[in-house]
């Protein structure tokens, strides 16, 4: 199930993001990191992995992990979930599938439209937030999925070299 994505008209200084829903909240990732969007595939569970690791799937011969960010972020899934999809992200040779409740749209966001995430007392684990984009009645958190999962790209490089 590949989705047709409506792109907003963009000017040159815009960055494009793919916005999706986790529960009733909106998140977005840089569109350049998105490889494709697919329907939820059959997966093989991974023993000894944290519970947000749903399993591994066969993406045309490539074995990739599927994670459920909702579990990781403790967000309750939407009740009616016909639109559930998997966003395949690819950053520096790490490929990962992320389950989302719904893929919403592609956002073209200018830098001046991004505001910083607020500092919240006693919480220092939202490094993954790249910023916040406010639409007319909506709020979208721009995120780095790999950071929230604690996947350090540097480690990956070291592993490759070993």
């Amino acid at each position: 199930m590949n989705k047709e994505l409506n792109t907003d008209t963009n000017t040159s200084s815009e960055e494009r993001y793919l916005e999706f829903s986790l529960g009733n909240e909106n998140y977005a990732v840089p569109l350049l990191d998105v490889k494709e969007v697919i329907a939820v595939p059959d997966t093989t569970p991974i023993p000894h992995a944290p519970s947000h690791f749903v399993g591994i799937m066969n993406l045309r011969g490539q074995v990739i992990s599927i994670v459920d960010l909702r579990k990781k972020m403790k967000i309750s899934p939407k009740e009616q979930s016909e639109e559930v999809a998997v966003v395949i992200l690819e950053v520096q040779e790490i490929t990962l599938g992320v389950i989302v409740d719904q893929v919403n749209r592609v956002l073209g966001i200018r830098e001046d439209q991004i505001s910083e995430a607020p500092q919240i007392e006693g919480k220092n684990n939202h490094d993954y937030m790249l910023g916040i984009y406010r639409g007319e009645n909506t709020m979208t958190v721009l995120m780095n999925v790999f950071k929230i999962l604690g996947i350090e790209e540097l480690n990956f490089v070291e592993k490759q070299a070993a």
Partner: protein
Amino acid sequence: MDDFEKELKGDFLEESAQLLEDCEQSFLQLENNHEDPEILDQIFRLAHNLKGSSRAVGFGEVAEFTHNMENLILQLKENRIPIVESVVSLLLDCNDHLSHMVSTLTNNFNAEFDSVDLISRIVNILENGVESSAQTSLDQEGDSEIEVNETLEEDAHDIFEQQAMVHDKSLVENTDIQIQLDKKQEVANDVQPPLNESNVVEINKVQNDEQTAPLKKKVSAVTSQAKKDENIRVSLSRLAQLNNSVGELVILQSVLNQHKDEFKSEILTKSLGQLSKLSKDIHEISMSLRMLPIKGVLQKMQRIVRDTSNVLNKDIELRLIGEETEVDKLVLEQLGDPLVHLVRNAVDHGIESNVEDRINAGKSAQGNIDINCFHDGNSLVIEVIDDGGGIPPDIIRKKAIEKNIIKANDKMSDQEVVQLVFHPGFSTKEQVSEVSGRGVGMDVVKTNIQQLSGDITVDSTLGKGSVFRIALPLSMAVIDGLIVEVGRQNFVFPLGQVHETINVRPEMLGFAEDLGVVLNLRGENMPLIKASDVLGTEPFNTSQSFKKAVIVKSKTVNYALLVDEVVDHQQIVVKPLGHEINYEGFMGSSILGNGLPALILDLFKAIKGKNLKIKKIEQVFNEVA
């Protein structure tokens, strides 16, 4: 420089590196086999190719240098100059110089080189023949390096002397000499003393063009003949793509095969059968594409042995056995360095320095080193065998104690002690030698081999010699796998780690509080462990009266693993797991016939540091409480 030119130069350099490797082999063959005209033909062809294409892409210095080399080879071909060791050494030096040029140019297209010395050695042999060359090469070196500002007269004097020698040797035809005379006098009368490179080259060009003209046709005929078994270069990433797609094809094929009963039409069934065979062929071919004979790496060892034994003044013969043994390209690329270390080590430390020691021990005066390669099951085995003095365990023990590697009261068998040569910072040679370095060799070898999931051991008999044995997986990409079912899920066990599979019956079991359930297999006791405990999967009750277990045996682990079912045994294409899954009990994953990925379990590591004993015998047969 535009992209096209860059690409052209890049391609040329890549090709040249290959050509030079071939050249080196031919030179070494030449030394052992003077008579074979084909070897010289081949060398000449290689040099000629190199000259032509380097000139075409604009590497003038390379072209000029190869041109000189070609002249020398031509003389050898025509039997004007005998093939002796000094000539072969010169050719090898030239080859090294070219390799150096090629690798430097790869990084910097505009690099410049100093080839004067080598060219003067070539010219010297060309003019003076082999016997006198040692002496005159010294003279010439003096000319070019020290007495750069010699006066005209002295230079001219030198040249006349050389001419006299040429006359004496009569190695060069009269007309050539005349040309040389004329040219040399021009040089001598030139304002720029001494003999400089470009002038010398000029001389040889004149000489050469006359001689090569009739040869050219012959050469091109030979070249076109050689093209028959030509190869094509394909990037590894494309091969990986192909392998992926073929993997998909094979999986789809097995899905179709599973459902073939549903085909009602005869033509469909028949086509499926044919398709099935075709898929299998394609699969095999695509797998074999990455496999290369180990020859390429082994032949480099000839040179290592030659040079190393020359430095050490030892007479050693290297024999290569099983050169055609195939191995995955990725493995092959990593093999060179460890093998060089091992071979150098065998020459330096293995073979006795004193020939009389050998003769007294009843061995031939000439030392022997064999490299023996073969497939053993799913592994590639490479043995480096020397018939030298062997590794003395007591000396190793003493050194190891001195270096605090072991304690004086450690109880170790001689065999165990000898393995200490792989310990970091261990070198038994009293002095650091030019050849074997500073004792960083062997542990680096071991690390390299382990990075390839292989192992290295040494067997040594005092007075008889040593065998260094490397065992490597044949391919990082395909393994023999046992598909088992645990908790309704399929897992793959590498067959190399499985000793056997058995049916567990109640009478084979025993129990002790501290050991848990123990399995007695033909008199041997081993702990029985449930795979579902290892994998943390839900227990699954089968109604069978016996259970299947996989026996795992290695130096470090020995246990029986209860599984629900052994499903199949097949070749498994190993796919890497993402970095995000960091449990070391998994070796990778694979896509099975049902299209779903399955995890490959490393049976040696999966139970590490876990207390998995089964607490009651009843739990073995009644898993659901």
